[in-house]
């Protein structure tokens, strides 16, 4: 190591100051989720100083009404990278909010949930969804509301890993646990395991199947050590049955990728997935589609240039949209491409927005048949960008 003498320290300091050394800054905690209600009002959830806050906009994100605090007592909230507070609207003034509250212990957190029955004027006291209350991993929550109003929260959970450790046994990866609420979020049923051996720190994607049930798409650690993705209906896997492998890049790595997938399901039940993986040593983004029975529809398609990451997917009838971000050395660009025929042919990518400094992962949301990019950025603020239909290239 290098130990600096006082003179060398001053010299280096002058050197770095002269060279315009950047001022140290805190990581931005920008993760924001947004959704439209039936009337076209945009609802948003994010973190401000220990409080999850919800606000709404009647002018497509140009201005927001004063924010309402979801958690009255401040708590730690994960709102960066793969972890984001989430919001879902269920009509008749019902608003659901979920987030992860990290604990001081490494990798530890609790999955938190709160609901409003009065259109976001007030929120019930938050509850903890994970029924295992050890100070261990229950993080990376994902919220889903079915057409019949049933709520599902899924998350990454290490209760099995910790139990194995106590018993002196090896255990591969974490697990996907979930809980269902049939009473509008007043209470949650006992936790269940969707699948053992998930990856430890990649977001889980949930989407509605044709019957309204939740389908999960997540990065898994398979027995051969590869970190490919698995696809399964919530409640559709017999416990301890290994989930089917949906992606086949075969990235074999004992590391935390911090790259979770996204999922959208068409009216015909086709599953559309977008994910990050490394294939033949080259990292990148992939799009693929599967029949409802899990059989793939053709080979996956690589998309995005170098450094493309954190894809978002949206399906509107036959229209499928992909958005992702990439840092080019100066700024972060969100690119968008789309298919008009259910994912067979795709438009050329186009730049939809740029950010000069830190930015959240891009998200795609819809109101009726209109698609929007929802993106929180540090320098430019929150942006909702309408995405007009693009021409497909034959």
């Amino acid at each position: 190591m290098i130990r600096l003498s006082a003179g060398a320290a001053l010299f280096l300091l002058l050197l770095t100051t002269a060279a315009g050394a950047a001022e140290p800054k805190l990581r931005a905690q920008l993760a924001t989720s947004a959704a439209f209600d039936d009337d076209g009002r945009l609802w948003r959830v994010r973190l401000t100083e220990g409080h999850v806050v919800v606000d709404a906009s009647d002018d497509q994100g140009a201005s927001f009404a004063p924010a309402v605090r979801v958690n009255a007592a401040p708590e730690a909230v994960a709102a960066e990278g793969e972890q984001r507070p989430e919001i879902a609207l269920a009509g008749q003034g019902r608003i659901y909010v979920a987030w992860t509250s990290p604990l001081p212990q490494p990798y530890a957190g609790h999955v938190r949930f709160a609901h409003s029955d009065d259109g976001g004027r007030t929120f019930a006291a938050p509850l903890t969804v994970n029924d295992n209350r050890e100070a261990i991993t229950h993080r990376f929550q994902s919220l889903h509301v079915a057409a019949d109003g049933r709520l599902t929260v899924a998350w990454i959970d290490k209760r099995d890993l910790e139990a194995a450790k106590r018993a002196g046994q090896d255990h591969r990866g974490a697990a996907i646990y979930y809980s269902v609420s049939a009473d509008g979020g007043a209470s949650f049923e006992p936790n269940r395991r969707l699948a053992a051996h998930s990856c430890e720190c990649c977001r889980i994607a949930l989407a509605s199947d044709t019957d309204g049930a939740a389908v999960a798409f997540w990065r898994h650690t398979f027995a051969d050590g590869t970190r490919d993705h698995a696809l399964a209906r919530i409640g559709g896997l017999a416990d301890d049955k290994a989930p089917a492998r949906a992606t086949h890049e075969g990235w074999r790595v004992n590391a935390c990728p911090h790259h979770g997938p996204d999922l959208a399901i068409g009216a015909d039940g086709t599953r559309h997935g977008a994910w990050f993986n490394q294939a033949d040593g080259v990292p990148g983004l992939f799009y693929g589609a599967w029949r409802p029975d899990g059989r793939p529809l053709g080979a996956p398609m690589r998309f995005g240039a170098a450094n493309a990451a954190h894809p978002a997917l949206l399906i509107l009838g036959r229209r499928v949209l992909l958005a992702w971000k990439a840092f080019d050395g100066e700024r972060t660009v969100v690119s968008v491409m789309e298919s008009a025929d259910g994912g067979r042919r795709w438009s050329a990518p186009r730049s939809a927005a740029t950010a000069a400094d830190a930015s959240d992962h891009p998200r795609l949301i819809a109101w009726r048949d209109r698609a929007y990019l929802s993106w929180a950025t540090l320098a430019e603020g929150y942006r909702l960008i309408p995405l007009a239909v693009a021409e497909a290239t034959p």
Partner: protein
Amino acid sequence: MKRFLLLAGALLFAAWAGAAELRPFVPGDMARLLQERQGRPFVLTLWSLDCPHCKGTLRQLAALAKARPAVDLVVVSTDSLGDSQHVAALLAATGLAQRDTWVFGDAAPERLRFEIDRRWGGEMPRTYLFDRDHKSAAFSGAVAEAELQQWLARNFGAGRGLKP
């Protein structure tokens, strides 16, 4: 100017005390780091508190630090400056606090990752073994022991292995 004096004071104090300190890793630091080490081999490891696979690599580095005190180790946490206390505590517990240690100090981690290695997808732990000419081999996950031994032999001669 106030910030300048504070920083100067902190640096002078650190130099006087001879203590290693956890420094904020800001844009431009990767280039400075390489420049300061021109013609010299070193190890660069990126890790985070949040990453269960990183602890094994930190232990691997600590073993290397003990067996080969001459090896220049640069240990960069990709956590936020706000996590500095936890980062410093974990480095101290692992036995790496006296090495060249940093914590990401920018609002946008992608900017720092890009400067370190634009081909790196951000997975952790990530380790680079830099040769004298600064050609490097990159590892996601643990460093392959055989390649580490070859790198040591190439850059530091036969010497002792990892185990004293």
